[in-house]
C-alpha cells in the first residue's frame, strides 16, 4: 500500500497548495512572474545574487522611482490598471529535469504569465521548451549559450548578448588594438568542459581563424578540479600574447593563484566574464589581476553616460551589499524588459505578451546597459546588445571598449 | 558401479616449496565413516579443501564414484554429492534456517518448490524443524553445526564439527553423525579430540607432515608407535612404513 497512498497524500497536499496560490493569483491586481535560478548546489550564490537583482527590479517596477527606465516612474503596471508584479522563485539546482518540473509548477500552479532565468544553459533548454509548450514567454536573463536561440522557439527571448557576440567583441578589440600598432598574434584559450566553456571556446576558435590569430594553446579542463598546475604549466609554456579564460568563480580563483605560484605573468588576460566578474574572485585574487580585461554586459562607470545606472546600483547595493555585476545587471534589466512587455500587452495572456516582446523597441539610454537598444530578432535575440570590455584597474572595472562607451584607454600589456 | 565412493591417488598440493599434502592415496567405500586425524599442520584441512574442490591438487587424481573430479570446481563437486563443513561455522545469517537448507538442496533439485520440501525433510531429520523459519543468525553454535550437516550428499566432509560444543551438545552431535551415517552417507571427519573420533569411526587415517602415516581400525592405531610418536611430536623421518589406503 506504499507508492500510491503516500503520493495521494502528498498529491492532495500539493493540490491544496495549488488552491491557495490560485486564490492569490486570482486577485486581479497582481501579475505573477516565475523566476528560476539555482538556489542550492554548487552555484547557489548565483541564485542568491539573482534574487537581490530581481527584488531590485521588482522595486523599480512596483514603486515610483525617478529613473529613465521602463515602468520606473509608475507604480505597478499602468497597462493593467496599476497591477503589481509578484515574483515566484523556484530552485532548479542546476538540473534540467528539476528546472522543467519547477517551470511546470510555476505555470500550472502559481499561474505565472512568463518565466525568467536560469543561469545554467542546460536548464534553459528544458525551461524554454516548457514555456513553448505552454505558450508563454521565457526571458533568458543570463544564459550566454548561443545554441539556445537556435532551437527555433517562438517564446524564447534574450535581451543580453550571447557568447558569440561577446567573443566577437573581444576580437573587434584585438583588431582595433592591432590597427593602433599593438602586437597581438597568439592566443591561449582556457575553458571548462561545460556548455558555457565549449560554446565560448568554439566561438573564439572560429573568430581566431577568420581574423588570423594563432591559437597556441586550447586547454579544456574539468570544472572544479582540485588542481590546475598541469594546465597552467602548459599555458605558461605556450606564453601567448593573450590568455582567454572561460571559467566560473571557483576555477577562476584557482587559475589566478596557480599562475602566481608558477610564476606565469601573461601579457594580457581577456576573460569571458563569468567568474571574472564575480566580486568573490576580485576579493580573493584582486592584486594578482590588476589590468585584467573582461567582457561585460555592464559597467558602473556607464553612470557617466546613463544616470540611472548609479541610482539602480545603489538600490541593488542596499540589498546585496555589493555592486551590480555582469550577471546581476542582466538579470535585473531582463526582468524590467519582460515586465514592460507585459505592461504593453495589457494582458497576462502568453501570446499577447509574446507579441508585445516582439514589438519591443527600447533605446539603450533607457536601460542600465551599454546596449544600443533592445529589439528582438526572429530568433528572439537582441542583436543590439553590444558588449563592452572592462579593465580591472586599481580594484575597479573601467570600460575601455568599444570607443563610444569607453571612458579610459586600455592598459596593454596588463603589467604596464 | 565401483565399490569405492572416493579415491585419492598420489594427491599432492604444494604451497611454494613445501608440500602441505604429499602423495596421499586412500579410498572410501559408500556409507563408510572414516576419521582423518593427525597433529596440527599435518595437512588435514588442505586435504579437505582438495577433496571439496576449494583447492586444486598440484599432482595426483581424485575420483568420485569412478568419475575423475580432479579438475572440477567446488560447485560441480557439490552437485555430484560432495558436501563439506567449515572449521569456522558458516551460515547465511540473513536467511531463515529453511532457506539455508534450500540453497544446498537446489544444488541437486532444480525446482525451488521441490527443494523446499526436501529441505523440510532434512530439517526434521537434523531436528531443526521447529526453528525452520528462524533467521539462521539466531541459532546457537550447536544448532549451526546441525544446520551445516543438514544436506543429503553422498559424501560428507566434517571439519572439526565438535569443537566449541558442550559435552552434552557434543553427545547429541555424535548421535547425529551416527544417524547421518545410517542414511548411507559416507563421512570423512577431521577431529582433534581422539575420545570422540575413535569410538565413532570404522577406520581412521593418520596424516603427518602431509603424508599418510598410518591407516586402520582405531583400536589398532592407538597402539601404533608411529602414530603415538607423531602425536608426541617425536618427528621420525617418515621411513616409518607408510601404510597404503584400505
Amino acid at each position, binding site marked *: 500500500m*506504499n*507508492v*500510491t497512498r*503516500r*503520493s*495521494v497524500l*502528498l*498529491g492532495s497536499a*500539493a*493540490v491544496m*497548495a*495549488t488552491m491557495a496560490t490560485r486564490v492569490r493569483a486570482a486577485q486581479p491586481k497582481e501579475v505573477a512572474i516565475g523566476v528560476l535560478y539555482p*538556489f*542550492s548546489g554548487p552555484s*547557489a550564490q548565483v*541564485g542568491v545574487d539573482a534574487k537581490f537583482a530581481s527584488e531590485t527590479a521588482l522595486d523599480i517596477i512596483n514603486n515610483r522611482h525617478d529613473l529613465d527606465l521602463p515602468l520606473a516612474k509608475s507604480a505597478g503596471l499602468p497597462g493593467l490598471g496599476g497591477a503589481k508584479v509578484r515574483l515566484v522563485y523556484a*530552485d532548479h539546482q542546476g*538540473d*534540467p*529535469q*528539476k528546472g*522543467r*518540473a*519547477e517551470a511546470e*509548477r510555476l505555470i*500550472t*500552479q502559481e499561474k505565472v504569465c512568463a518565466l525568467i532565468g536560469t543561469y545554467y544553459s*542546460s536548464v534553459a*533548454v*528544458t525551461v524554454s521548451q516548457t514555456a513553448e509548450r*505552454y505558450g508563454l514567454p521565457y526571458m533568458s536573463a543570463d544564459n550566454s549559450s548561443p*545554441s539556445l536561440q537556435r532551437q527555433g522557439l517562438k517564446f524564447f527571448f534574450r535581451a543580453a548578448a550571447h557568447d558569440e557576440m561577446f567573443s566577437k567583441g573581444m576580437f573587434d578589440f584585438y583588431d582595433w588594438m592591432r590597427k593602433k600598432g599593438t602586437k597581438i598574434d597568439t592566443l591561449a584559450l582556457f575553458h571548462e*568542459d561545460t556548455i558555457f566553456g565549449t*560554446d565560448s571556446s568554439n566561438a573564439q576558435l572560429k573568430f581566431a581563424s577568420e581574423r588570423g590569430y594563432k591559437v597556441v594553446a586550447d586547454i579544456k579542463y*574539468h570544472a572544479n578540479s582540485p588542481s590546475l598546475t598541469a594546465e597552467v604549466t602548459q599555458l605558461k609554456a605556450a606564453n601567448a600574447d593573450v590568455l582567454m579564460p572561460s571559467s566560473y568563480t571557483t576555477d577562476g580563483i584557482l587559475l589566478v593563484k596557480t599562475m602566481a605560484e608558477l610564476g606565469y605573468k601573461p601579457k594580457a588576460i581577456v576573460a569571458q566574464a563569468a567568474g571574472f566578474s564575480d566580486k568573490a574572485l576580485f576579493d580573493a585574487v584582486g592584486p594578482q589581476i590588476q589590468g585584467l580585461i573582461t567582457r561585460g554586459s555592464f559597467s558602473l562607470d556607464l553612470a557617466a553616460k546613463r544616470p540611472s545606472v548609479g541610482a539602480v546600483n545603489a538600490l541593488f547595493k542596499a540589498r546585496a551589499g555589493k555592486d551590480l555585476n555582469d550577471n546581476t545587471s542582466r538579470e535585473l534589466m531582463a526582468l524590467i524588459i519582460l515586465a514592460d512587455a507585459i505592461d504593453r500587452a495589457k494582458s497576462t495572456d502568453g501570446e499577447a505578451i509574446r507579441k508585445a516582446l516582439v514589438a519591443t523597441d527600447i533605446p539603450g539610454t533607457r536601460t542600465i546597459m551599454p546596449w544600443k537598444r533592445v529589439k528582438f530578432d526572429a530568433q528572439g535575440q537582441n542583436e543590439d546588445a553590444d558588449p563592452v570590455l572592462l579593465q580591472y584597474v586599481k580594484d575597479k572595472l573601467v570600460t575601455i571598449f568599444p570607443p563610444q562607451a569607453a571612458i579610459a584607454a586600455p592598459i596593454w600589456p596588463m603589467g604596464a | 558401479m565401483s565399490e569405492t565412493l572416493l579415491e585419492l591417488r598420489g594427491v599432492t598440493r604444494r604451497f611454494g616449496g613445501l608440500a602441505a599434502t604429499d602423495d596421499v592415496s586412500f579410498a572410501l567405500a559408500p556409507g563408510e565413516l572414516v576419521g582423518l586425524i593427525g597433529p596440527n599442520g599435518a595437512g588435514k584441512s588442505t586435504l579437505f579443501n582438495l577433496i571439496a574442490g*576449494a583447492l586444486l591438487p598440484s599432482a595426483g587424481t581424485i575420483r568420485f564414484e569412478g568419475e575423475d573430479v580432479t579438475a572440477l*570446481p567446488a*560447485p560441480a563437486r557439490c*552437485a555430484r554429492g560432495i*558436501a563439506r563443513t*567449515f572449521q569456522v561455522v*558458516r551460515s*547465511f545469517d*540473513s*536467511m531463515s534456517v529453511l*532457506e539455508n537448507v534450500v*540453497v*544446498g538442496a*537446489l*544444488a541437486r533439485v*532444480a525446482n*525451488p518448490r521441490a527443494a*523446499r520440501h526436501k529441505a*523440510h525433510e532434512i*530439517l*526434521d531429520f537434523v531436528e531443526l*524443524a*521447529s526453528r*525452520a*523459519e528462524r533467521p539462521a543468525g539466531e541459532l546457537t553454535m550447536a544448532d549451526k553445526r546441525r544446520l551445516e550437516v543438514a544436506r543429503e550428499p553422498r559424501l560428507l566432509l566434517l571439519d572439526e564439527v565438535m569443537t566449541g560444543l558442550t559435552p552434552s551438545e557434543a553427545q547429541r552431535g555424535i548421535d547425529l553423525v551416527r544417524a547421518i551415517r545410517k542414511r548411507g552417507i559416507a563421512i570423512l571427519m577431521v577431529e582433534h579430540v581422539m575420545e570422540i573420533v575413535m569410538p565413532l569411526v570404522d577406520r581412521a587415517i593418520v596424516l603427518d607432515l602431509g603424508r599418510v602415516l598410518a591407516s586402520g581400525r582405531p583400536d589398532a592405531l592407538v597402539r601404533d608407535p608411529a602414530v603415538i610418536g607423531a602425536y608426541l611430536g617425536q618427528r621420525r623421518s617418515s621411513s616409518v612404513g607408510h601404510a597404503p589406503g584400505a
Partner: protein
Amino acid sequence: MAPRLSDPAPIDAISGSAPVGGSAFRRRRRGEFVAAAAILLAAAALPLGIDSVYVENILVLTLMYAALSQSWNILCGYCGQISLGHALYFGIGAYATTLLLVKFGIPPWFGFVAGGILAALVALALGYPCFRLKGHYYTIATIVIAEIASILVLNWPWAGAAMGIQIPYAQPSWLAFQFGRSKIPYFYFVLALAAVTWLATWLIEDSKWGYWWRAVKDDPDAAESLGVVVFRSKMAAAALSAFFTAVAGGFYAEFVSYIDPDSVMNLQLSLLMALPAVLGGIGTLWGPALGAAIIVPLSELTRSYIGGSGKGTDLIVYGALVMVIVLLRPEGLASLLRRRPGAAVP
C-alpha cells in the same frame, strides 16, 4: 530477508505449523501478489483524481525511482554487490535511446530495449574483471568506471558532448513517445515499468537465483561449498539489474526530452538510485517502492516549497531525514509493513 530479523514474533506464531510452512509460504506469496495487484490498480486510477501537472510529475519521478531502485536492489540488495555506479547503465539507456531516435529516427520503444540489452552486455563485460573485487574495492571500482564513462561522453561531440542532446518536439503519439503537455501516458508507462521490475523481483525471490544470490550476499565461500556458482550468480544479477536501469534511463530521456552527461551520468544519481532501497529495506520486495514513495516526493516538495530561499533549508531537511530514517530503521521501513503473521514466512 532482512525484515524477518526485525520482528521474529509473528514467525513464532506460525512456526508451530512448521511442517506445513510450505503452504504458509505459498499463502504469503499469494498475499504479496494480490497486494501488488491491488496497489497497481489503485495507482492506475490515480490520474483520475489528480489534475496537477506538478503532482503528476512527482508521481512519475516516484515510480521511476521505484523502478530504478528495484533494479539496483536486484544486484545490490539480493546479491550483495554494492554498486554506486549505476548511473552508467542509466546513462547508457538514456543515450542509446536518444541517439537512436535523433540520429537514426528509430522509435524510442526500440531504443528502450536496445539500451537495456547494451547495458546488460556492458554489465557483463565489466563484471568479468570487477567481480573478483570484494567489498569497498568493488564499490569504488563501480564509481570510477561510471565517472570515466561520464567524462568520456562529455568529450564525445557526436553524442552532443557537454551540450547534451535535445529531443526535437514531435506530434504527440505513442510511437514517438511524446504527448505534448500531458504526463498521463508517461505515468502509465513508468507505472508498468515499476510493476515489471517488482514482478521480476517477486519471481526471483522464489527462484534458484533468488536463493543463490542471497547466499552469495551472506557468505560466498559457504555458498560455493553448497554448489552455488558464485561468479555466474553475480553476472546474472548484474545483467538483469543493468537492463532495467537502462530502460528507466531511456524513459527519463524521453520524459525530459533533454539529456547531458551531468544530468544522466553523475555520481549523485547513482546514490539517489540506491537511496530508496536503503530507506525502504535493501534486499526486500517492497523496500524500493516504499522508499521511493517517501523520499522522492519529499525531496521534490522541499525543493519546491522551501528551496527558493537560497538558504539550503531543503538540503538540511532532506539530509537529516535520510540520516534519521537510516539510523532508526536500518532494516528499512518495509519491516514496518510486516505485521501480518503470514507475511513473515519465507
